[in-house]
């Protein structure tokens, strides 16, 4: 009786995993299709990846434009949001008393606000109020920074809580100035949370659709998700599947690099190491 029940649950889990992976795998496989179809298999070829001089992913000017726009947007967002998020996390952590709940609630609110609300609000803001910010890259950057800032703050703040204040106090007792304690004691200890938030922010921005779409100004600020969205309805070729594959690969690569970086950092600093702890850093799960 007990055995049967257990195995039924195991089947459900495996069924779910297969169900969630199959569409992605099919999409990847059809990027190697020899024909123009994305549903009928016509033999293997690399024409949609490299060989076709116009329509392949790495030659078509529009997909190349989308790829570079996506990468620029992701790295620019990382550059802005990481220092800003760390500062905000440290600052909001130090607020004591009544205000602290309000500040913590406000800084993590965007995390659970639907993207369409943020996107629509920012669109109206940039087209009516702050018209100095043109739609396109600048607005997309500000939008993504606004939206992903909360995740950096939450991740870094969780780390701050687990570090506690004793290390900094010890540094101050031993004669360090406030700034020195921050620079030489606290910041180095924050490193795993910084790495985790880099991974999370990159993965969010690189396949963000709603905000980036609301704030785009047309073809010259088209990112990969926008490109996929706009061409999936028309006469799309397997090059679109190849583009989608690249998107999956990008997030996946960054995740793997981040996890390995985290687990080696943890090992070297004598903290609980291993991929599991690193994964918990990224997903903010306690284990």
């Amino acid at each position: 009786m007990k055995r049967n029940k257990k195995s039924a649950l195991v089947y459900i889990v495996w069924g779910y995993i297969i169900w969630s992976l199959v569409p992605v795998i099919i999409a990847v496989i059809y990027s190697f299709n020899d024909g123009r179809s994305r549903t009928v298999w016509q033999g293997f070829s690399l024409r949609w990846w490299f060989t076709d001089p116009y329509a392949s992913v790495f030659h078509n000017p529009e997909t190349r434009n989308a790829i570079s726009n996506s990468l620029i947007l992701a790295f620019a967002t990382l550059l802005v949001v990481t220092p800003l998020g760390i500062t905000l996390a440290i600052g909001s952590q130090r607020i004591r008393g009544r205000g602290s709940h309000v500040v913590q609630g406000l800084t993590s609110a965007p995390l659970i606000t639907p993207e369409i609300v943020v996107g629509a609000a920012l669109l109206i803001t940039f087209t009516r109020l702050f018209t100095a910010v043109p739609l396109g890259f600048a607005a997309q950057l500000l939008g993504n920074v606004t939206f992903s800032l909360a995740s950096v703050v939450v991740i870094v703040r969780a780390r701050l809580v687990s570090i506690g204040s004793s290390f900094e106090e010890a540094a101050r007792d031993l004669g360090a100035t406030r700034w020195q304690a921050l620079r030489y004691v606290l910041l180095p200890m924050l490193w795993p949370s910084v790495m985790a938030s880099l991974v999370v922010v990159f993965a969010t921005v690189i396949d963000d659709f709603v905000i980036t779409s609301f704030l785009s100004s047309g073809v010259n600020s088209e990112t990969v998700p926008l490109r996929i969205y706009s061409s999936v309805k028309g006469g799309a070729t397997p090059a679109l599947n190849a583009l989608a594959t690249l998107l999956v690969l990008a997030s996946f690569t960054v995740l793997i690099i981040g996890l390995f970086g985290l687990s080696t950092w943890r090992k070297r600093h004598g903290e609980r190491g291993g991929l599991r702890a690193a994964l918990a850093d990224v997903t903010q799960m306690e284990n």
Partner: protein
Amino acid sequence: MRIFGVNYNWLDGSPITVVLGLVYGYIPFLILPLYATLERLDWRLIDAARDLGANSRQAFRLVTVPMSKAGLVAAGILIALPMFGDYYTNDLLSRSPSTEMIGNQIEFFLNASTLPQNGAVLVIALSLFLLLLMSFYLRSTRQQTRQTAR
């Protein structure tokens, strides 16, 4: 990538397709917090229930479910919030007016019509509704952390 999986002839505006697409897209966001809740459970209580004669189904119904209720509600709200703003799943899988959700109307009014005010009003209405859910979520997570801190 849910775009490609359902590439069959049921892409003609069937509500089942949209629901399946939404389930596909949002279920990971339900599993993750729920898993975290289950992992934090005090498994000794379940062992105790088994020791005291409950079979595994009873232990699940009488101990596991009540103990993870807060996490279940929080996870539900966590996926409901972004889902209310979703318009692209619908757009890609159906495009039929009969399956439109509020997100589609917001997107239409703001991007494709001369009446962005209507879109703004819809956004405010949606936010007010979601604010209720959000405060509920924040309260339940705060209770949860207080419980585990104890």
